[in-house]
């Protein structure tokens, strides 16, 4: 979808920059290779330090931020649904219970992609921007960012025990930093190094998992807070 928007927005002199957040850049590269629309959706960058999480408040994905020509923020970080949600699509049969629960949760979310695309196109074409009062990160949220960063430092040194301690702290300090949680969960492996069955949400040394945590925060509309329009 961003590929199409990139082409559409070029006519209005608007850049699209897609940023993949992942501590292992090679994982991003493999993903992009399988999803060439990402490579074709404007400039494609990789944030292997999660620096956009703290600096731009990209604490979940997909999120976006709009920037004016003078480099000022026109609209701070917000959920950016450019593709349709699950809506009333039938769910496949025979899914494991937790996968089914996950899809049912996603399906229960408000599908606001049409509203979002309309607002995005209005800004691109006229400069009209939705009103918002979004502020900066709290001290606890920035402390969580620092904890995640130190954990990643230990990960790069091969000190996995220290990494887990830091990342557990990051999750505790900012339960809404889904980037920190999902990054950690995605790297949990079995003893012989194979990827865990994340469908069943085995998050190893970390507390919580996607399904239970999203339910705990109040459902998908809290996980993806609606933009202010």
């Amino acid at each position, binding site marked *: 979808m*961003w590929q199409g928007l990139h082409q559409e927005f070029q006519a*209005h*002199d608007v*850049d*699209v*920059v*897609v*940023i*993949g*957040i*992942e501590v292992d*850049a090679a*994982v*991003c590269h*493999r*993903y992009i290779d399988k999803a060439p629309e990402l490579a074709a*959706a404007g*400039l*494609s*960058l990789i*944030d*292997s330090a999660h*620096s*956009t999480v703290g*600096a731009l408040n990209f604490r979940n*994905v*997909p*999120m*976006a*931020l*709009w*920037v004016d*020509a003078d*480099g*000022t*923020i*026109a*609209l701070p*970080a917000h959920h950016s649904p450019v593709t349709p949600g699950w809506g009333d699509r039938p769910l496949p049969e025979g899914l494991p219970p937790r996968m089914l629960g996950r899809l049912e949760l996603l399906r229960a979310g408000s599908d606001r992609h049409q509203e979002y695309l309309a607002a*995005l196109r209005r800004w691109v074409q006229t400069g009209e*921007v939705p009103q*918002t*009062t*979004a*502020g900066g990160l709290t*001290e606890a*949220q*920035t*402390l969580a*960012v*620092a*904890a995640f960063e*130190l954990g990643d430092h*230990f990960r790069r040194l091969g*000190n996995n025990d220290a990494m887990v*301690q*830091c990342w557990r702290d990051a999750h505790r300090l900012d339960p809404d930093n889904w980037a920190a949680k*999902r*990054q950690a*969960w995605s790297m949990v492996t079995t003893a012989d190094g194979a990827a865990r069955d994340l469908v069943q949400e085995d998050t190893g040394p970390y507390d919580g998992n996607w399904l239970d945590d999203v339910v705990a925060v109040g459902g998908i509309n809290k996980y993806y807070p609606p933009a202010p329009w």
Partner: protein
Amino acid sequence: MTVSADEWAEGTGWHLEESGWCSGDRCLPLAGLTRDLQGRFDTAQLAAATNRAVYSRSDAWGVGVVSVGPEHGDQSTAMVGRALPDLTLQDRNGNAVSLASLVGRRRRMVLHAWAPW
């Protein structure tokens, strides 16, 4: 734990100038910040003065390692109209790309975050 002015500038973008610690058009006075005999600043004190959180752990050898978080802000102050923070990311070929270098190339810019997880 202490930090030199150059180390702090490299990590946070706040530079030591005659008028104090400055970033962009903002400056904070040096008053109240102590320095050791080598002219280094106390990390926790400097972080608090510049609205940053400090997280620390010991490494495998028992040496303390500190991570300084991004600037936390007044929740009542809207982000709208603030300058886009300058971050350095990588393109697909591993080249460093500064977000600041992308500003002004076109009339507007949309940053879109995705992840493989």
